Structures are given as structure tokens and as C-alpha cells.
């Protein structure tokens, strides 16, 4: 680019990023507020984090959320990667249009519709609702995000490496495991992290598909937030943000180490 960015560009960037980040920064800062009044700064304190450690219900919800997140992300990564391979590598198989539709529709479908329909399915087949139904619901939504990310990587992928391996007599499965998989691994890792963070955060699907005994963190946070802002909730949210940020850092480090390039992390990015 020959010309430098104009003042208009710099101001647009500064305002845009301030808008995105200032609210989160304020939330984090006020979670260390000593005052119970969430709007008055009463000095630095970690008392809300200490209080959290003694909140059995909150800890329980956190544990449930974490397990659902890891399980559903693992399942979504496998299913999403298979779906991406099917979309990119299989050309026009029968029912491809419907398949593509089922991958893209959940990304934009209002979650109240997806949540309601999944719940009605679980009621119709008469399964006990709770941990497993939430896990299945999250897997269904997040596998589509994984599919989009992996598919973007497969599309701009140098096929000649695979062809070279095969020409040299490498069997297909071995080619896949030793050539293809390492090349798309960064995208698969990004997909896993995204699936995990989406699950950690989901309120609507979890609210519809939950049952007795399975209260996730977002459900708990939501019921508390409706009653007003509390410093304890600021602390929970800060911890959640830290977990998510750490997952992203780990994922991008893995991407760097394996020599891959960054992936577009949202469904529209490759449009």
C-alpha cells in the first residue's frame, strides 16, 4: 500500500476498537472493586473472587459448563471436520444442497427457534433432559462453525502436496494422516476453541434443553443479572473472559508452532 492511512481511517479504527473493548475493560476493572456498590470505586480488592470460591451453586454450575463445553467441542470438532471434508472434497454428491443448507442455516437461525425445536425433539423421544441434551444441542450448533473454519482452510489448500505423496505410492489413509491432517490442524484447533467458547457462553439453547440438576453458568448468570448488577457476577464474568482469552492464546500459539497461518474465525469472513 503506497499511501499511508488517512486521518479518517485512523479515527474510524480508534473509535471502533474503543467501542468494542472499553465495556469489557470496565467490567474487568470493577470486578476488583472493594465496594459493594457497583458504580462507586472503593479501592482494589479481590473479595468477590474469594466470595465466589465459597459459592457452591456457582462452582457447581461452572463445573457443569466446563464439562459440557469440552465434550461438545470435541464432538463438534470431529463432526465439523468431516462435514468440511464432505463439502469441499466430495464434489456434487446426492443431497449436497440440503447438506450445505443444514451447515449454514444454524449459523444464522435465531437461537430461540433452534432451542425450541431441539427441546420438542427431546420431549418427543422421551429422554431425560439435562447434561446430555445440552451437550447434543451445543454439538449441533458448534459443529457448523467448525465446518466453516475447516472448510475455509481446505479451500485454499495446496493439493499438489497430496498428489505428490500419492504419486510416490503413499496409500490414501496414510496421505490423509501425514499430509492433509497436519496442514489443516491449525484450522481444526481454532474450530475446537471456537466451539468450546460458544458452548461456554450459550444461554438460549441451554435454557431450552436443560433439565433438573443441570444449571450452566450462563443460565445462572442470566437469572442473577435480571435482578441487577452484582460485583460477584463481575468476578465470574472476568474469570470466564480469562478462560476464553487463554484458550485463544493457546490456540494461536499452536497455530504459530505448526507454521500455519491464521484462520478466519467467523462464518462470513470468506464471503
Amino acid at each position, binding site marked *: 500500500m503506497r499511501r499511508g492511512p488517512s486521518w479518517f481511517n485512523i479515527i474510524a479504527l480508534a473509535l471502533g*476498537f474503543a467501542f468494542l473493548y472499553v465495556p469489557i475493560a*470496565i467490567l474487568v476493572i470493577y470486578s476488583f472493586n472493594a465496594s459493594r456498590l457497583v458504580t462507586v470505586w472503593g479501592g482494589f480488592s479481590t473479595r468477590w473472587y474469594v466470595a465466589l470460591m465459597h459459592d457452591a451453586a456457582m462452582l457447581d454450575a461452572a463445573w457443569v459448563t466446563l464439562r459440557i463445553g469440552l465434550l461438545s467441542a470435541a464432538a463438534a470438532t470431529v463432526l465439523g471436520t468431516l*462435514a468440511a471434508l464432505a463439502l469441499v472434497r466430495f464434489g456434487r454428491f446426492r443431497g449436497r444442497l440440503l447438506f450445505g443448507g443444514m451447515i449454514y442455516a444454524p449459523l444464522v437461525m*435465531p437461537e430461540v427457534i433452534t432451542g*425450541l425445536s431441539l427441546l420438542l425433539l427431546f420431549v418427543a423421544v422421551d429422554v431425560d433432559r439435562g447434561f446430555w441434551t445440552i451437550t447434543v444441542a451445543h454439538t449441533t450448533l458448534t459443529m457448523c462453525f467448525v465446518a466453516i473454519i475447516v472448510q475455509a482452510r481446505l479451500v485454499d489448500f495446496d493439493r499438489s502436496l497430496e498428489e505428490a505423496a500419492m504419486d510416490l505410492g503413499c496409500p490414501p489413509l496414510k496421505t490423509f494422516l501425514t499430509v492433509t491432517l497436519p496442514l489443516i490442524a491449525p484450522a481444526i484447533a481454532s474450530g475446537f476453541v471456537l466451539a468450546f467458547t460458544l458452548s461456554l457462553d450459550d444461554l438460549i439453547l441451554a435454557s431450552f434443553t436443560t433439565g433438573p440438576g443441570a444449571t450452566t453458568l*450462563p443460565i445462572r448468570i442470566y437469572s442473577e443479572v435480571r435482578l441487577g448488577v452484582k460485583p460477584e457476577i463481575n468476578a465470574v*464474568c472476568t474469570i470466564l*473472559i480469562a478462560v476464553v482469552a487463554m484458550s485463544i492464546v493457546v490456540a494461536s500459539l499452536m497455530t504459530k508452532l505448526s507454521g500455519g497461518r491464521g484462520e478466519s474465525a467467523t462464518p*462470513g469472513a470468506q464471503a
Partner: protein
Amino acid sequence: MTDEVIVAAPAGGGRATTWPRRLVVLVPYLWLAAFFLLPFVIVFKLSLSETAIAQPPYVPVLDLAEGFEGLKAFFSALSPRNYALIASDWIYLASYLRSLEVATIATALLLLIGFPLAYGMARAPRRLQPFLFMAVVLPFWTAFLIRIYAWINILQRDGLLNQALLALGIVDTPPAWLATDTAVYIGLVYSYLPFMVLPIYATLEKMDETLLEAAADLGCPPWKAFWLVTLPVSLKGVIAGALLCFIPMVGEFVIPDLLGGSENVMIGQTLWTEFFGNKDWPAASAIAVVLLCLLVMPIMIYQHMQSRAIERGS
């Protein structure tokens, strides 16, 4: 092993389909059919049912043990009265219209804010662009509910925004921000901004810089070059971003519920209340079916654009 032979047949190749190869398609296909497609059929069926004090809380329930007679009884008990209710009660119509209005205005606001941001990113020095890209993506990965909650901290009556406004002497009495339309729009724009910025950035970033230079060399003023060159090039990104924001915003629940007022509810809230408050599952299902019909067109346009993007790439 399910992954075998994936690499053996190139896209569009006419080789014989083998079982392992078939499984790669079949497993995700069946999963989505069972947990995404089939549930819609059930929603549609339930929208024709009636609410009942029973477990599950609706009639009729299909009893396959009854055989053909049961099937006949089941179908004769279905009725469109939930749709008649939606059509006749102003509350439902009003919340559909309100949802479309809010989503349209919010999409326009997102374009106004998102386009300059994407444009600034695309014109930033090359080496900075990966960082800027990451900076836009990061909030999308950070919990959605938490980001809405962060705004409650700021917008409440004695919150930071009013404290700042009072301190600067801009207002004398603190205005109410929460439970207003302004708060809903702030929440929507804030949450969906990455979805608008990234598709636009993706098109602008690929734009051929020399087009603008050619325009300038031929004496075209910058604003006109923007209008005649940059805007048409980025149109695909603009449409993708707008759809990616508009469709889920129509059915949005959390943002209007936490930031908005109790009157003028959006359809997502109405559905939520019918289901969790009134425990009227059939009515909630009918609301969902009508909402889906409203969104079918934009969803299909979006899907069409996405499949075209893949085919171009592969």
C-alpha cells in the same frame, strides 16, 4: 477408519463411492438431519396441536401402538387454531413488526459503523492487518452474555455513562438509558459488529489497489472513485454482513430482554414468554413457524452466497 480415500478422489471425480468415503458424508449428515431438520418437523406438528395439562403439555400425542386408528385420530385432532390466534391478536403482529423494524434499523447502524471500520482496516499498513483482524474477532469469541452484561454496568441510572455526563456538565439530571430503545440498539450494534466488519473487510482487502490509482490518473475525484469503484467491489461483503446480522437479530432474545423496556417486545421475547411463562408450547411453536417463514428468504439468499463462495474457491 472413516477418513480413508478422502484424498483418493478429487472433487467431482467419478470414482466409485466406497463405504468409508460414504461415512464421511453420512455421519455429519445424519447428525444434522436428526438434530436440526427433524426437530423442525416436530415444531410444525406441535404448532397444530393444543395445549393441555399433561405430560408432555400438549395434545394430541401420536400413539403408534394404536395403529391406523391412532394415526387417524392424531391427524383429525390437529388444527390451525394457533395460527388463527396469532393472526387475530394484535400483540403477536406487533412484536413481529417490531422485530423487523429493530433488525432493519440495527442493520443500517451496523453498516454505518462497520463499513468505516472495515475500510480503515483494509487501508491500514499490511503488517498491522493480522492484528487488527484478530482485534475484531476476539470480542466475538468472548462471551456474548457477558458483553451485554458489561453494558448494564455502564448504562444503569447511576452507571458510568451518567457519571461521565454529569461530571462533564452535559446533563443536569441523569437520563434513563436502560429499558430504552437506545440501549437495545447499542447492545445489538455492539454484539453483531464483528459479523458486519469481517465480510466487508474480506472483500475490501482483496480489492485491486490499482483500480483506484487508475481512477485517480484519469481525473476521478476520491469520493467519486469510492462511489464508483470501492463500493461496488465491496457490495458482496456488505450483503453478506447485512444478512449475517439481520437474520439472527430478528429473533434476538437476550439483548432486548436485558437492555430493553417491557413494552414493545420483540418476537423472540414473545416466544420465550409463551414457552417459559405461559407454558403454551403449541403457541410458541406456531410463533416459531411464522418467524421461520419470515426468515426463509434471507436465509436462502445467504446460503446461496456461501455455497457460491466455496465453489469459487475449490
